[in-house]
């Protein structure tokens, strides 16, 4: 009997937790609905925005006449959209590849070699990781200006490549490798680079992947950097272009939102375990 009550209680708790969770995801559902609504229906729902009347905007979870018209228009009649989409892909790809090349060896150095001064350097990295973009905005601008990189995509890519956040995350993964394993490899005569490639990379994979997943979500969403350093709108990523769409083109805004969202959702679903691990790694004590 008491077991039954316990079961009911557990189900009730699950339900009570699920309710706000669904509420949290409501905005996504609205975006999906909006993207398959016809323009006429959208205008009808959103008419108070245009007319300044006192009635409220309305919504339907299932549209009366679902249509992929806006998708068609976006994908086949807006070549400009592809330029921006490609910009986003290119910048995020370059940043992540650069972070792999630069950040992973750095994380390995911090995790495996406890030499004099390494701790102080690591603390410096942590502080840099925590400084917001606005604090380093002027310094980035000065150096990019000197290198003649302003208004090119390198201005967004290069500073991000040397971000210290992925170093910190990958470090979390490397730290879980037992030292004895390295000692054994050294005794067997393996060089440091070989140890890094054959032991470090495979065993630190989860830390590395979590840095990539968190990095993707962060840079797919980046706004401050391109806004400050890219004047030419044809160089912008999608995330900056999207807000330029006005209420009058609401259907277009919903559709573009969904397409922007798709890669992020894909990475989220594929990498959720790494994402969680990354969040936990980011909290490991050095």
């Amino acid at each position, binding site marked *: 009997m008491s077991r039954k009550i316990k079961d009911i209680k557990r189900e009730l*708790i*699950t339900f009570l937790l699920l309710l706000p*969770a*669904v509420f*949290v*995801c409501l*905005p*996504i559902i*609205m975006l999906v609905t909006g993207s398959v609504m016809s323009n006429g229906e959208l205008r009808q729902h*959103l008419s108070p925005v245009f007319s300044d009347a*006192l009635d*409220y*905007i309305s*919504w339907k979870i299932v549209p009366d006449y679902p249509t992929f018209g806006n998708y068609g228009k976006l994908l086949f009649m807006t070549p400009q959209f592809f330029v921006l989409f490609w910009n986003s892909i290119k910048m995020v790809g370059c940043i992540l590849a650069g972070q792999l090349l*630069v950040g992973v060896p750095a994380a390995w*150095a*911090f995790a495996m*070699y406890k*030499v004099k001064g*390494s701790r102080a*350097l690591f*603390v410096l*990295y*942590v*502080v*840099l*990781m*925590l400084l*917001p973009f*606005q*604090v*380093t*905005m*002027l310094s*980035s*601008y*000065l150096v990019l200006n000197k290198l003649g990189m302003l208004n090119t995509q390198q201005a967004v890519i*290069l*500073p991000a490549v*040397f971000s210290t956040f992925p170093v910190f995350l990958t470090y979390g993964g490397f730290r879980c490798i037992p030292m004895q394993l390295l000692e054994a490899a050294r*005794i067997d005569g393996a060089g*440091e680079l070989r140890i890094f490639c054959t032991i470090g990379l495979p065993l630190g994979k989860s830390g590395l992947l979590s840095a990539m997943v968190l990095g993707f*979500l962060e840079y*797919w969403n980046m*706004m*401050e950097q391109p806004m*400050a350093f890219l004047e030419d709108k044809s160089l912008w990523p*999608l*995330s*900056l272009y999207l807000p330029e769409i006005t209420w009058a083109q609401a259907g277009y*805004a919903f559709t573009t939102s969904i397409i922007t*969202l798709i890669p*992020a959702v894909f990475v*989220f679903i594929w990498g959720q375990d790494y994402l*969680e691990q990354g*969040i*936990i790694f*980011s*909290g490991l*004590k050095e």
Partner: protein
Amino acid sequence: MAKRVVGLKRNVKRQKTGAKGHKEMRAFFLFLAPSLLGVLLFVLLPFMDVFGRSFKTVVTSQFVGFQNYKTIFANQAFQLAVKNTLRFTIICIPLLVVIGLMIALPVSKLKSAGTIKSLYLFPMAMPTATIVIVWKMAFYKQGFLNLALTRLGELTGLWGAVHTDYLGSSASFWVLVFSYIWKNTGYTIVLWLAGILGIPNEMLEAARVDGASERQCFFKIVLPNLKGSLYTIVILSFLNSFKIYREAYLVAGAYPEQDMYLLQHLFNNWFVNLDFDKMAAAAVCVGGFLFVIIMLLQYLWDSRD
């Protein structure tokens, strides 16, 4: 056999202090070099330049001492921005920490929490630009929030139609708070969960056998064991609190309602207007302040164990 292993170990130890130490140092710097050079070139050296500029005028580069610092501290926009940013941080971080814990505690007792965790984490994956249109629809003066409030008023008969413009009044600050909590609750839950599940079950069992109530277990065992998680959550929430600028900018532009005017707006506007002298001084101040806070937190955490 055993003796030989011991001998081997001793051998390794001896090597480490001598030639090995040098070798280790070399490997350390070789692995670190690309990253360290980049950090020097893109962050540290230019920041020193900024530090120098904070004592000079912008056009003539004349040395003016602390003049720029005096200017920004007397600047009303700076005072407003600092006040709002502090207010935002002081309200949001405790709120986020508590909400996260309140959800994580019951979730930790469930057998399969995968779906719930994913649902709460999902906002983290949503690009800010895609969500702004929904926020506008919700907080517009004829939007969903007002619609819901009006219906509630009709139902209870306590108030009439509500037409608050949340984005154009002091309520806009709370819109920001809401959207911050919405986006960041997920990872807070994950961190709390990691902490809670890390507490050895035997400890709780033993306490229960000794007759401790659930309340006592929570306050005497669970909470004290979560201090490490708390530190992490505070640091990460703090880091992410600066990113609220995206929402604020997208919802209300570069010069929003004054309760929403954050340090990030100010930096951006100074940047656009080429007020590099003020910006340099403010960057040094904010950077220095953050450095002290981070060091203090690190110290507190280190002295814990």
